[in-house]
């Protein structure tokens, strides 16, 4: 085991897969000479050259579409968006082209491509640079969606995403790049669509993903220390496919659930999870499922308001106490 950052884990995944398979290439703004806006692609240009580490113009729909075409012709592109906010300009390439190609060609053309980059709020980046795009992609048949919370999952999921035959939307946490964690030595793959129980507990299930996993863990430790409540934290890791077997089984065990996400409440990923729980575990519930999400507004620049808008451990604790009838 080695202790490395989330950023280093992503870099290792790219490097290992590019060494393993010469069809893999990366493209995006600043990925080459600049070493990546967040340094995820550091050193790759030197090792692999500019055909495989391609700096692009600032033209997201254009280079994302170019990646789709390259994938149709048998390459395995990894397209980096400097942030997922900019990828809104490429939504056409991702949704109309990448996600549909296999289906509408009757199975003839697969699009083995990864679209990756940071999502979510960071520190005072205001409304256009703080969005959580996760449910926008989780809604689309034909895509797979990964949202790793830890360095080990970032490494294992990105390697699986690059090897996958289908288009994968890979949303990293902008605030997670410096987070350190243990990563296994040697080949490490995490299957897409399999959740992970990050903390075992008997009293309540917290279902969450990405940066909010860390918020849930904080809340869980405090709940144990101060309220004698043992929370089970289910890290979805992938939002499509959703591993409903894992969170439904957890709720059947704990009989209570809080669903936590950083993004907006209406039609958020949490809404789907609550639906799955009520449909498959209704008789096991001892309380209505609670949701904690970002507030239903564009992000504020002012730090004091940003801290209110993004869910924190205290909000999760309040929700847990509510479903445990402790408030």
């Amino acid at each position, binding site marked *: 085991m080695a202790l490395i950052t989330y950023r280093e884990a992503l870099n290792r995944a790219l490097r290992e897969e590019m060494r393993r398979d010469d069809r893999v*290439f990366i493209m995006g703004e600043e990925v080459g000479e600049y070493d990546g806006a967040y340094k995820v692609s550091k050193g790759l240009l030197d090792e692999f050259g500019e*055909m495989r580490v*391609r700096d*692009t*113009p600032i*033209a997201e*729909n*254009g*280079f*994302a*579409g*170019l*990646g*789709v*075409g*390259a*994938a*149709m*012709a*048998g*390459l395995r*592109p990894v397209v980096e968006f400097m942030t997922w906010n900019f990828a809104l300009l490429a939504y*056409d*390439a991702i949704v*109309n*082209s990448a996600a549909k*190609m*296999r*289906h*509408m*060609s*009757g*199975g*003839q*053309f*697969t699009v083995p491509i990864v679209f990756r980059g940071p999502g979510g709020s960071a520190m005072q980046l205001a409304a256009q640079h703080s969005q959580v795009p996760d449910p926008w992609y989780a809604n689309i*048949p*034909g895509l*797979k969606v990964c949202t790793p919370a830890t360095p080990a999952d970032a490494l294992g999921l990105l390697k699986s995403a690059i090897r*996958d*035959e*289908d288009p994968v939307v890979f949303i990293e946490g902008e605030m997670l790049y410096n987070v350190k964690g243990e990563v296994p030595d040697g080949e490490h793959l995490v*299957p*897409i*669509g*399999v959740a992970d129980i990050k903390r075992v507990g008997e009293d309540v299930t917290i279902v969450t993903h990405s940066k909010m996993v860390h918020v849930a863990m904080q809340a869980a430790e405090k709940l144990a220390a101060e309220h004698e409540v043992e929370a089970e934290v289910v890290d979805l890791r992938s939002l499509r*496919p*959703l*591993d*409903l*077997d894992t969170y439904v089984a957890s709720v059947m065990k704990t009989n209570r659930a809080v669903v936590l996400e950083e993004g907006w409440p209406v039609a958020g990923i949490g809404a789907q999870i609550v639906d*799955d729980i009520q449909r498959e575990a209704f008789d096991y519930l001892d309380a209505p499922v609670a949701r904690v999400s970002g507030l239903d507004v564009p992000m504020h620049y002012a730090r004091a308001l940003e801290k209110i808008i993004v869910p924190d451990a205290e909000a999760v604790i309040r929700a847990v106490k509510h479903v445990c009838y402790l408030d």
Partner: protein
Amino acid sequence: MAKTEDEIMQGDLQGIPREKLMEMLRWMVLSRRFEEKTAEAYQTGKIGGFCHLYIGQEAVAVGAIAALREDDYVFTAYRDHAQALVRGVSPDAVMAELYGRIGGASRGAGGSMHIFDRDVNFMGGHGIVGTHLPLAGGVGYAIKYRGGDQVVLCFFGDSVVNGGPFHEAFNMVAKWELPVVYVVENNSYGMGTDIDRVAAVDDLFTRACAYQGKKAEQVDGMDVLAVYDATTRAVKRARETSRPTFIEARTYRYLGHSMSDPAHGTYRSREEVQAERKNDAINSLAERMEQAGLLTDEEYKAMDAGVIAEVERAAEFAEASPLPGRDEIYAHVYADEFRGGLDRRDAWR
């Protein structure tokens, strides 16, 4: 004095041998007859959805695709029947796709706008205006990546030149020197809007001047030989120097934008359409070949009859091809088995 058979077989127009001329003439007639049958089937309800016919524009697809090698690639937009046929997708498979049958090129999943055939590198059939231009650039990137010498030919309509994907794609293929030949089929109308009413520049080929290294030229898209000549030069340039070219083919669509709207109406007059029809690309090539002694009226009629029979057989094939079964709904959404099952949330269906 009548020519001998050898003289006829060895004859040419503008250096293009008779065999190639006959091939192009036949492709244009096939495209025309196929779409006449398509219109008939649409009107009787055998074909549904959006259906955009190419009648009038045949010289562009035929002249351009005739300049390709078998291992080259073709992309086009949603007005894609002719390109598919000329590229070598069988008329049976194209018609069955229009009928929404399992024997269709895309197993009935795509319909008129989304014909694909991997076997002949026919890359579709794309329904969002401009979206496939970067995709064609990506295939060009893959060719260069592997050190190959194939070429990508990408057709699109005139309204594309005003949108972002056009400029984003042109910039990248020019900067990275990718072997892509872009052909705009300028039929003067983006659906019901005259291009002059929405484009700041009339001569669309001049748009490419902004992208260093991208050659551009305008050709008469009603003259199949002119299209063939321009595309042949562009393909040679792409193959030998990996550089892109932009060709503007001035053409004319005889029918409405799709089967849902009339040939003329608020945006163009009946007289205009009738006048343009006199400049028909098929008649024009047939007449030139006849004048050069390369084709007799009897030969033309026999060829036409053969094409009509082929189209009728395609319609019979489509009619007889089974409808896709329920298992097809989930069959091609993902390459592997979707974990947990895509059908996990479809109770009561």
